[in-house]
Structures are given as C-alpha cells and as structure tokens.
C-alpha cells in the first residue's frame, strides 16, 4: 500500500518530497539499527532454525549430516509409531490434568491473597518461591517426598488411614499425576501473579452494587469477578496450554519418561530420537507435529476469544 502511494505521488513531485522520503529512509535506517543487534541473534537462533525444521522433517538427516529428500516418509512413519502415539496421548493427559488444576489453584490463591489479610506479603512470597527454584532441586526433593516406602507423603497418607497409598513415581498409573502435582506446585505462583494483576481491574463499585442487590459471594464471583477476568483468563489459558504441550524438563529430571513409557511426552520423544538416536530428520517430523499443536491451539483460542469479546 505504502509503496503505491509513494510512486503515485512521484508523478507530480512537490518540492518537499525528496527531502521527506530521505527523512523516511533515514528513519528506517535508524529504526533498523536499533533492532538489528537483537534481531541478528533472534533471526539466526530462532527464525532460521524454525524454517530449517520444516526442511529437515522431509529428509532423513542423520548424524553424518547426510540428508536425502524422503518426502512424507517421516510423517507416515510417525503415524504408525506406537511410542509417538503414546507420547502424544501422555502430553494431552498431562495437559488435561495440569491446565484446570493450575487455573483452579492459582485463581483460588489469588482470590485469597486479594483480601486485606495480615501477612499477605509473606504468603505471596511463599507462593512464588517454587517457581524460582532450580528444576534439579525440585526433582530430587520431590522424588524423595514421593518415595513409596520412606517418603513423608505416603507416611502422612498412612497416618490418616489410607492403607495402600499409591506408588507415585514407581507406578505407571500414578507417575503422571505425581508429575502434575509437582508441575502445579511449581507453576501456581506465576499464574497467581497474573490472576492477582487481573483482579486489580475488577471495579470495586460493581461488587458493591451486586452486594446491595443481594448477590451472595458465589453469585458475585460468577457474575462480577469472572467476566472482568476474561482477558486474564484467556492469556493464562493460552500460556498454560503451550507450556503444558511442551512439558519436558520436569519429566526428564523426575521420571525420564518412565516407568515404562507411562510419562513419555512429545518433547522427550523428539529429544530421544534426535539427540540420543541421531535420527534428526525423523525427530524433526515429530517436532513439526508439536509446532502445529501449539500454533493451532493458540489460534483457536485466539479466535474463540475474539468472537466472545465482540
């Protein structure tokens, strides 16, 4: 658009024009000079790898760097690959547990901490602390806490009368819920901050008006707080979904995908095929699948949000 107007104006050049376009050129150059130092790194390490990823997924790129074009062979192989199917299902399973649980807990915490209570600052700090702790420390500590025989968690469960507490990380059924618990424990402080920020936008007058109209706490929450939180909720859901789809470090340090394949997730499948088995082409095809899962879910949520807000 802009170029067309420029050339059209060029047919009858007013005396100021060359100066103006020179100015514009100068502005563009200065603008780019600001962005360039960061953009070189960003382009080289993020944009180019993303483009190369798509190319690689159509080749049989291996450890020797030799790559032949194989068309859709990698993707056909993915569809038939039982491990890949398990990794997708496990990723979805993790997300299905982790997203609602984290929203529930962090929103609940934010609602509590939004009250004028004594010591709120301390609780806010405590809630945020797991989030800044290193993943290795988290894994080691929780692995011991979850230990079926010696762990404090199962000891507590036996104490309150549960005869056969779960085997947690040693049992195929309970390993994923255990990881979800730790994931929620780690992330809730971060999402709590976002919800707390959102709660500041709820106008006090609306609450007062609803109270005058006789609405109880629950009705006020559903009809006043939640609608006002819609933008925050959208943002949190999108980020939570992406972060759940790409879950990796927690799994790697806590279970390494086990026992068996019960906690094998997509990122780990990519890592294993790529870095452990050097099938870079095949791993790239799985990475493309992860890429599209994240993009599509973001776009869908984006459109849905747009529709609802209009």
């Amino acid at each position, binding site marked *: *658009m802009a170029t067309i107007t420029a050339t059209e104006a060029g047919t009858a050049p007013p005396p100021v024009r060359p100066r103006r376009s020179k100015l514009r050129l100068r502005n*563009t150059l*200065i*603008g780019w000079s*600001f962005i360039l*130092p*960061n953009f070189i*790194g*960003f382009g*080289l*390490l*993020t944009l*180019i*790898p*993303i483009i*190369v*990823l798509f190319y690689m997924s159509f080749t049989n790129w291996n450890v020797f*760097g030799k790559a032949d074009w194989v068309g859709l062979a990698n993707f056909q192989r993915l569809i038939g690959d039982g491990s890949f199917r398990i990794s997708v299902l496990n990723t979805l399973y993790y997300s299905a547990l982790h997203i609602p649980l984290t929203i529930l807990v962090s929103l609940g915490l934010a609602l*509590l901490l939004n009250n*004028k*209570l004594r010591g709120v600052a301390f*609780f*806010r*700090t*405590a*809630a945020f*602390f797991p989030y*800044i*702790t*290193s*993943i*290795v*420390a988290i894994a*080691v*500590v*929780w692995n*011991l*806490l979850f230990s079926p025989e*010696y762990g404090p968690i199962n*000891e507590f469960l036996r104490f309150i009368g549960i005869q056969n507490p779960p085997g947690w990380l040693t049992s195929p059924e309970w390993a994923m819920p255990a990881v979800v618990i730790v994931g929620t*424990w780690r992330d809730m402080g971060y999402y709590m*901050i976002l919800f*707390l*920020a*959102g709660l*500041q*936008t709820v106008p006090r007058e609306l609450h007062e008006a609803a109270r005058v109209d006789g609405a109880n706490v629950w009705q006020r929450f559903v009809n006043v707080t939640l609608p006002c939180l819609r933008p*925050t909720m959208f943002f949190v859901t999108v980020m939570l979904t*992406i972060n759940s789809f*790409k879950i990796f470090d927690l799994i*790697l340090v806590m279970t390494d995908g086990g026992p068996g394949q019960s906690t094998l997730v997509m*990122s780990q499948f*990519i890592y294993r095929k790529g*870095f452990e088995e050097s099938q*870079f082409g095949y791993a790239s095809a799985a*990475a493309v699948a*992860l*890429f599209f899962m994240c*993009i599509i879910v973001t776009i869908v949520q*984006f459109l849905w949000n747009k529709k609802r807000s209009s």
Partner: protein
Amino acid sequence: MAEQIEKDAELLVSDFTAPAGARRGLRKLAEQTPEPQPQVAYTEKMTPGRRIARIAMYVGLVIFAIGLLAPFVWMVLSSFKSANEVFSVPVKWLPETWVWQNYIDIWTESNMLVWIRNTLFLAVVVTFLQVLTGSFAAYGFARMRFRGRDVLFLLYVGTIAVPWQSYMIPQFILLSNFKVSNTLWSIILLQAFGAFGVFLMKQFYETIPEELSEAARLDGLSEYAIWRRIMLPLSIPALASLTLLTFVNTWNDYLGPLIYLRNPDLWTIQLGLKGFVSNLFDTNYALLFAGLTISVIPIAIIFLLGQKYFVEGIATSGLKG
C-alpha cells in the same frame, strides 16, 4: 494491507499481555502501599459470620504455605543429616546430630566451584547482552516509525507460541556447524537474544510519555542519545525486572546446558548436581542436599531482595523469560 497488519499486531499484542489496567494495579500491589479506606470498612462490619470467614481464610492460607514450603524445609534440614539418616523410617524432620561437615565436604567431593564459576559467568554475560540488546531493540519498536516494524514485531510475538523444544534440533545442528556447541558460547547465544527482553522493555517504554522523547528530539538529541540519556534512566525498574528474571532463568536453566555442554569442565551447577545424582549409585543424599541448598540460596536471596521487580516484570510482560 500495512494498516491491517498493524491493527492485527496491536490486537495480538494487547491480547497477549496482561491488560494495562492490571499492570497498573500490579505495580500498586508490588509497592505494597496499604489502602487506608478498607481498614475502616471491615472493622465496621465485623459480624460473626465474617469473622468465621476470615479465620477460614487464614487456615486455608496456612495450609497452602505449609504445602508450598515443606519441600524446601525438608531439603535444608536433610542437608544437615548424616547419609543414612535421610532415609530413616519413620520420617524424622530434624536431624539427630547436625552434620555441618556436609557443607565442607561438598566442595572437595564434587566440582562445585567449577560449576558455580561457569554458571555465574553464563548468567552475567547472558543478562548483560539480553538487557542491552533487548532495551535497544525495544526503543526501535516503541518509539520509531518505519516500514516493516509491525511485521517484524509480529514475528517476535509469534514466537511466543512456538516452543523451543520444537526447534532445538535445527538450532543444535546450526550451532554445531559453527563449532560453538560444547562451549559456553552456545548457551550465551541461546539465551541472550530472546524475544522476552524486547517484549518487556517495549511494554514499559510505551508507558513513558511520548512528549519526553519528542521534546528531546526538538532539542536536537539524536535517537541514540534519547535512548541513552532519557529512556534508559527512566526505565530502571523495568531494567531491574529484566535483569533479575534473566539472571534467575539462566542460573536455573537445565535443558540448554544438557544438550550443549558435554564436557564436564563446562558443566553448570544444575548439570553438575544432576550428574551427582545419577553418577554414583550409592549417592550420599545428605551431601547432595547440601549442594542443592547452596544452588538455591543465591537465587532465594536475589528473589527476596528484588521481589517487587519479579512481580512487576511478570505482570508487565505476562511472560517469564
């Protein structure tokens, strides 16, 4: 066309970040200025029902806090136990005798010093580069008008939805071809140029009144001088947020070093401690806990000192670096 892109970019960005009102609220929250009026409001209406509700809230909070902090307490207490006592049944929280020796032995029985040196080097260099290039680019996005700006910014925003895990393989191959894998430079390159810094600084710059830079421009200051002498001093809170978040993220990063740093002399503290777990079958867990405690303490101190900036940084960008 250009207008449509600009509109879409704006929509995307506004939807992708904590709303402006929320940001203001959060800043207020972070400053922790008590509002005078509610104090009066609730003492007036302290009915028995409300009192019970308040007590319930406190109970809820205390349970939460215990659940949140118990693992840390467990870690620190276990670091003072003897090797066997960590697994005693029934579980004992307090060590029988306080073994301070663990904190001396960890330095001789592991390469802790090398790991800390590497991690510190990475964290400092990455943070410096991220803050410098991020705030510089943010000025271009926030204050300059030029062709291609919005498309470019859309690219930056778009990568938020793209997990690193999906392009870690081509990135690794690229860096291997440049012969930087298995050097500390690989981690610096990996972490220093993220979109996060650009994003956070741009959000902050846009809250600074346009008139300030406009006036400086009329006074004949170049754009670079405006960035250097007006925007940078005014954005110290945001720079602090970015510095702290980047530092903590680099210190805690596990996946990047895991993939790139094969040579044990290059290991970071996270890799080293993880190696400590998996290397010895009969890991001395008490010793390990001492190491973990040492690795968490600097971050805990930084966090406690700069809490306000952590909260602001996350609320401004909606991201965590």
